[in-house]
């Protein structure tokens, strides 16, 4: 009986507190400029910001206390237990470990594919050391175009967030990436050269061929009238034969 009453009391109390929180927002926005605006004026309720595309503007946006933004891994505390990778429903983690001189396991590679990540936060719950957190950062597309890494991140690789200490530092990774790109470009160049050579050869062939063709066409052209000229003369042939 006491439990019954207490249950109802708790339910009503939490319900009223919830109503108070939403009611506060309601009161805040109902009779302020947010509502009393003209329709052509876009200065607005707090959660709507005219975004001009700068990080400064993005930083001004007040997000909720428990907002789930991009993931951040504090690599120094990470123990490579891979609980996050197990918890992740869509497998967006790529984790490798490496033993340091002191014998501790450290992530040599801790990559999160932001393209796949759905910001569910299950990995953060699973993390035993609390090193994996969700930041309030949400302007990922903007970061891809600003800062020192301008232009480098506008590709699929840019949608992977890289953490990790170990044999591949960020610079090394970038170098590897650069080398890969160089090799690819060299290959491309080679291919282009080859194709250019081929094209040149083909062009040469073509250049020869058109002359040939022209030579062939010219007699054809000259020969073309011939049948016409011959035709009238031909019918008599069978007749003659």
């Amino acid at each position, binding site marked *: 009986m006491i439990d*019954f009453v207490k*249950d*109802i009391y708790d339910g*009503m109390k939490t*319900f*009223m507190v*919830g*109503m*108070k*929180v*939403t*009611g*506060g*927002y*309601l009161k*805040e*926005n*109902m009779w302020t400029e*947010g*509502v*009393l*605006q*003209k*329709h052509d004026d876009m200065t*607005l*309720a*707090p*959660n*709507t910001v005219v975004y001009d595309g700068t990080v400064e503007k993005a*930083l001004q946006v*007040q997000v909720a*206390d428990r*907002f789930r933004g*991009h993931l*951040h*891994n504090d690599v120094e505390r990470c123990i490579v237990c891979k609980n996050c990778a197990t918890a992740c429903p869509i497998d967006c983690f790529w984790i490798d470990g490496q033993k340091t001189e002191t014998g501790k396991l450290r992530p040599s590679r801790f990559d999160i594919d932001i393209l796949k990540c759905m910001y569910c936060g299950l990995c953060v719950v699973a993390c035993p050391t609390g090193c994996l*957190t969700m*930041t*309030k*950062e949400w302007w990922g597309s903007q*970061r891809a175009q600003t800062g020192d*890494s301008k232009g480098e991140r506008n590709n699929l690789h840019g949608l992977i*967030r*890289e*953490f990790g200490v170990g044999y591949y530092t*960020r610079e090394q990774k970038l170098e590897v990436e650069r080398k890969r790109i160089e090799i690819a470009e060299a290959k491309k160049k080679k291919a282009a050269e080859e194709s250019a050579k081929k094209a040149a050869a083909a062009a040469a062939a073509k250049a020869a061929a058109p002359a040939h063709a022209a030579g062939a066409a010219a007699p054809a052209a000259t020969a073309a009238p011939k049948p016409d000229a011959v035709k009238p003369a031909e019918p008599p042939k069978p007749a003659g034969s």
Partner: protein
Amino acid sequence: MIPIFEALQSWLQVDAAWVWVLLAVASLIPCLIAFLAVQVIAGASTYVERKVAADIQRRVGPNQCNPNLFLGVFAREAAERGKSPKADFGGKVMGALLGAALPLIDILDKIGGRWAPGLLIFLADGIKLIMKESIVPASADKPLFKIAPVIVLASAFGALAALPYSSWFYIADFNIGIFFVVAITSLETIGILMAGWASNNKWALLGGMRSAAQIVSYEIPTSLAVLTAIILAGTMSLQGMIFVQIGINNLHQGWFWQWNLFSSPFALILAPAYFLAALAECNRTPFDIPEAESELVAGYHTEYTGMRFAIFFMAEYAMMCVLSGLAVAIFLGGWSTGIGPIETGFFMKANIGEVIPGTNQIATQPIYHWWAGFFHFGVFALKTYALVFIMMWIRWTLPRFRVDQMMSLCWTKLIPIGLFCLNGVAIWSLLRPYAAKSLGGWENYHNLVGWMSLLVAIALIGWVVKFFLTPLTTEEQERRKLIAVANLNKPVSSF
């Protein structure tokens, strides 16, 4: 009926058959008015709902569809075309008319754009829904599929007939009015189940089944609350209930603490229970499991498009209004203003109401001025819409219940409370004559109960006002700010 019939026949000097036809046509008029009112209320409610949602979530909400943008463009175009020499006669007339309406549209825009930006979005929505194709799935049970939305709307719409709108201005005052409303609103289940079955879609069927289970369960607490109100009032007529709540010829006549909500502790417990059950009955959040978007695609109206879908929506908002109106009528004094001197001195023409001795039932009803009806209608509409507004507020506060949680809330919480309060009220009304006798007469009893109700009302209203006016504690606010700042300054990756 019969006196009207005879009077009409003698006045018009026609056959009885013509009088019947006339009466049938005349009875269609309130139906049409109510039907149009339902559409406008449903449309406006969608706008209010979107604005409330936007305010709670700190968004802007609809703000683009203003009179000038929605009507003005069309009117300007028509006026300009009407001026051109090529225009035919009809074009000129239309152009002149709409051109003349332009100043009005501008005024509307100034008012609407300032106080209700985006108000006409519901007209745009309605036009869009009417113009959309209404698809009937090939494998659907076609007659049932087509008739289901009509039944759902009819149940909400039929209940509107019995609501007490004002002192003289109402469609019908049945002597079983409240029973009629409870009975006809539960007809909605049949329509929803029919829609779920006829769609030939597993989500729709699940939604329909859930709705049936839900409404069958929640009918019980609703009915228990209604029964309590019936015992308190001693009548099932909704108008009669309101006259009881106004009170007859005692010190507290017309004051708001005479309302059922404050006058009995059991009603005070039951009113929130009734409101919760009403939420569940009109399938609103947090009890909207029949159309849970995250589980069933859209529940029972998954397969519906165009106007048939709109009819379901209209029915939902009409049902909200009906159940809120019923709550107002049985707990919140209906159309009475709640201020004694205004009610008795200003609105009443002749205060001839009398109580049946020994009870609080009404023998003769007081007579009101004809114009008081409009004020009363306004008061009723305000109270009803306040409850509808609270329903919307709850919708954007609470998440959805799970099915078993919802059922356990009904069967283990609301029904025991309802039964307890029903028994309490029954004993209360049994003991009433003895209390009156020991106090030395009914007048003393009514006075005493009135003063006690006043105390309860002051305590309750004061508590609610205090609760909502005190802001969150400064500690709480500081904590929130600290968290926000800490999160903002958190090192992001060196990416």
